[in-house]
């Protein structure tokens, strides 16, 4: 790892004397994981509240209004406390080991995927060369967790939900990956930080979608495939509350059930973030350029220097601006997903399969071909 990680930066890149190496590894790991869990939990809680408000306003009602005062902002916290207090139930016929393991696997893998998420330039948990590849792989693990939960519940509804999940994810992982290939060709890197850097210029508007016109259809394909991958309506067939009670999580209750929800909202945020980084400029926007112009006056303030500089070596305000820009883009993606959910009816499973195999996959291949040709002709 060439740049170390956040904790290493906090320590000033120097190991304190007299402390064995394994202790430093252990302490940095514990701190990093705790930070990560905090960030993911806050994102999930905020997204649950946002979903209830968005759905409320789309249906001409208010959503939660009482808990905490202003627009019921503390509703998610109250719900979390309630879920923690609930009785921990495991059905008699369930496969106990896998039943307990499934939510842990689902949540653990999404935490792992979140580790590759950059929060600001120079502020990351793990600077992974193959960042987006890592994120896709970890999302694949959550699928196995969902299938595990459905089978271990030993219930017909859960099993149907798990089967739908397996079929759906196998079908949509292909267009998801292929539609991401187009911006990856433009970026020339799997690393999220480097991809964001490659879009600096044009006063913060040198986004990949503006560099290559074929990335606009690729972005739409990515959005649809991401909806299916995160089990969001209109592709929420594994859950399908009107047909399958609650699908794969029918038999779950209390905090285990809430783990699945945390995973869903964290995955939504993560997919939106990947889309924001690889299609819509990452940290770059006119605001970021303005902040760079205003706060970063030192020499060597071009993109590469910003990245190799440590967390506290550049004005914090620039980092805050860049991080806020990316978070706003990702949250807008989450909002779009919610908007779609409360607007479009759920599709049937055969329609899901038809759309995935017959339309999205060939379309994604064609888009990649054209995007690659464009890049080749321009370079």
């Amino acid at each position, binding site marked *: 790892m060439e740049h170390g990680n956040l904790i290493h930066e906090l320590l000033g890149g120097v190991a304190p004397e007299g402390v064995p190496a*394994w202790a430093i590894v252990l302490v940095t790991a514990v701190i990093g994981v705790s930070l990560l869990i905090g960030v993911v939990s806050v994102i999930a809680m905020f997204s649950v509240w946002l979903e209830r408000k968005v759905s409320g306003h789309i249906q001409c009602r208010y959503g939660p209004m009482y808990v905490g005062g202003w627009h019921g902002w503390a509703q998610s916290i109250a719900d979390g406390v309630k879920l923690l207090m609930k009785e921990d139930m495991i059905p008699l016929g369930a496969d106990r080991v896998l039943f307990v393991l499934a939510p842990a696997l689902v949540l653990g893998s999404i935490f792992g995927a979140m580790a590759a998420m950059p929060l600001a330039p120079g502020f990351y948990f793990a600077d*992974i060369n*193959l960042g987006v590849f890592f994120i896709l792989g970890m999302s694949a693990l959550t699928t*196995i967790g969902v*299938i595990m939960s459905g*089978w271990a519940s030993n219930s017909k509804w859960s099993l149907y939900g*798990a089967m739908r999940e*397996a079929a759906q994810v*196998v079908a949509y992982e292909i267009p998801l990956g292929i539609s991401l290939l187009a911006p990856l060709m433009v970026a020339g890197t799997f690393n999220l930080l480097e991809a964001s850097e490659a879009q600096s210029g044009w006063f913060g508007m040198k986004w990949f979608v503006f560099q290559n016109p074929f990335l606009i259809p690729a972005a739409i394909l990515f959005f649809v495939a991401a909806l299916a991958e995160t089990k969001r309506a209109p592709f929420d067939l594994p859950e399908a509350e009107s047909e399958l009670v609650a699908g794969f999580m029918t038999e779950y209750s209390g905090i285990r059930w809430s783990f699945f929800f945390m995973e869903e909202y964290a995955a939504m945020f993560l997919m939106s973030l990947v889309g924001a980084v690889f299609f819509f400029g990452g940290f770059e926007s006119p605001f970021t350029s303005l902040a760079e112009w205003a706060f970063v006056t030192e020499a060597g303030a071009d993109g590469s220097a910003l990245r190799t500089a440590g967390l506290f070596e550049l004005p914090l305000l620039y980092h805050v601006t860049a991080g806020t820009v990316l978070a706003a883009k990702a949250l807008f993606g989450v909002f779009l997903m919610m908007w779609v959910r409360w607007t479009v009816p759920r599709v049937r499973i055969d329609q899901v399969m038809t759309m995935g195999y017959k339309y999205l996959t060939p379309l994604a291949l064609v888009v990649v071909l054209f995007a690659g040709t464009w890049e080749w002709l321009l370079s």
Partner: protein
Amino acid sequence: MGTERAFYACLGLGTLAAAGWGTSTGGVEGLLFAVFATLTLGGGLVCLWERSVVRSAFALLATFGGVAGLFLLLGADFLAMAQILIYVGGILALILFGVMLSPPDMGERKLSRVGLGLAAVGGAFAWVGAKVAATVSWAQAPGPLAPPEQSHAREIGVGFLAADQYVVAFELAAVVLTVALVAAVYIARRKITDFEEPAETGGSA
């Protein structure tokens, strides 16, 4: 139930022993290697041992994860991620899709299957071990290895395609896979005649 407990207790003890041995010989890296190696082997053992075919399939998760971890330790990030993405996300999901409808607990444990599997793996190991031992010149044992460099995707791609030696094989594999896919769809496709109504046998108005 007794054998079940004994098997998993042995597995746990083996893991602890391996972890202790790895830490004492290789520090943090040794510990990680021991953990990933026991995950790989233990997953395979559980896969053989479990009566339920679905549980066996889930045990493969540990094996694939362990192999990915070993790739990571070797500095082959791309291989590790591809292992997770393809084997866990694709192949394991497909296997599970195939066996998921079997009941949670079925049949009795076939100890012969476990024994046969162990014998096969042991034999393979012995053969590979003998081959490797024959080729290594033990006199010049290398010093401590340099930490592996991180593999950039660009380097992998350039090394893979620009070296003039893998391009043809790569393209041929792609063509073969495409042909196989089309053939599978052709075989699985229902013929138009399947949808025709059976001929009326007369009688009913």
